[in-house]
């Protein structure tokens, strides 16, 4: 019994040694700590001497480039806006000029038209007056002719009927009839 217990304890101790936690094997701690410190120092030196300044510089450079590009883009945008404003202004000016020219031309044409119309009216009026006069004359001439023809015809008729025409009587009768 005693030997068995002894064996069991020894066996357990042996088992614990082989399958125990290597993390709690303090004989290796010195080794690990030593190499850890070496590693950390090496990493620290690599990072501070080479890597971090380089990466930091690249990032700063990129940030600077981006900022510059954005500023340049902003400037170009501003310029584009100015150009657009100038273009709009030119367009508006041109429109105003064009409408002014149109107005002026229209006024001029109106003026000319009015003058021409007045002149034409005048001419037409003159022509109309002249014509009226001519018509009056013709009409007067015609009436006179008609009277003469009537008198002559009347005298002829009177003579044909065998009477001696009396000029004043015939004249009076014809004028009376013509008036009627």
């Amino acid at each position, binding site marked *: 019994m005693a030997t068995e217990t002894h064996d069991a304890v020894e066996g357990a101790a042996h088992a614990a040694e082989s399958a125990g936690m290597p993390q709690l094997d303090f004989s290796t701690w010195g080794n690990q700590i030593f190499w850890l410190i070496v590693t950390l120092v090496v990493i620290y030196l690599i990072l*501070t001497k080479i890597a971090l300044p380089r990466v930091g510089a690249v*990032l700063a450079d990129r940030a600077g480039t981006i900022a510059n590009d954005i500023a340049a883009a902003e400037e170009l945008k501003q310029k584009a806006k100015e150009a657009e404003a100038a273009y709009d202004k030119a367009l508006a000016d041109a429109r105003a000029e064009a409408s002014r020219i149109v107005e002026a031309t229209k006024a001029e044409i109106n003026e000319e038209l009015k003058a021409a119309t007045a002149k034409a009216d005048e001419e037409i009026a003159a022509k109309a007056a002249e014509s009226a006069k001519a018509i009056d004359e013709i009409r007067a001439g015609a009436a006179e002719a008609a009277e003469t023809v009537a008198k002559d015809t009347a005298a002829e008729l009177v003579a044909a009927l065998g009477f001696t025409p009396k000029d004043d009587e015939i004249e009076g009768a014809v004028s009376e009839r013509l008036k009627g």
Partner: protein
Amino acid sequence: MATEAAHGAEEGSSLVFHPMDQFIVKPLFGGTEVHWYTITNVTLWMGITVLAILALMVLATSGAKRIPSRGQSIAEMAYGFVYKMIEDVTGKDAVKFFPYVFTLFMFIVFSNLLGLLPMSFTPTSHFAVTIVLALVVFLTVTIVGFALHGAQFLGLFWVSSAPAAVRPLLALIEVISYFVRPVSHSIRLAGNMMAGHAVIKVFAGFAAIAAVSPVAIIAIVGMYGLEILVGFIQAYVFTILTCVYLKDALHPAH
């Protein structure tokens, strides 16, 4: 007797669990003695970590181009990530601690992720490593705090916004929590790493049994993805807690 029986059973069946064997520190070039200067697998994997950091932060950025290459983008992303973290959490005046915090972050994140390679060794799963990391942070915070603020740094423990009666009690709690910080800081990281690797190893043990091996392998794949996430998050958490503690050193007022 019982142990012997267990041993016999272990050797007899195919189910053999040695989940902790992956954490054993072994000398690399023969021998069994581990002296403080012995080159061990710890040395190897820390060296690989250094080389990985060198490759990412120095070789990949060697062009220092304005339009970055893929590697340079990752390096810049890491830089920006930690820089923004320390600026947001600790404050603009803490930027002088940036190289130090960045060193911690890079070491932890690369150790965690490289430790996921099969047959590899994870330095951050060892308490010896994480306790040193946490103690360095603890000492930095304490020394910087006293150097900048002198005795006023003790105001950190004196919660002036609390009722006067409970202030001594709160001060005691604050002091205790202050000294527990390095413990939780280090054990969180090592515990997470150890747990994840041990779980994967246990599933790997199940994979030797034909009936359950497909399930076990799927579980390993799932755990692996989770461990990649955990490896990154634990590095993030360690770094951000470092920033939080540094904030106490720089601005101790409550």
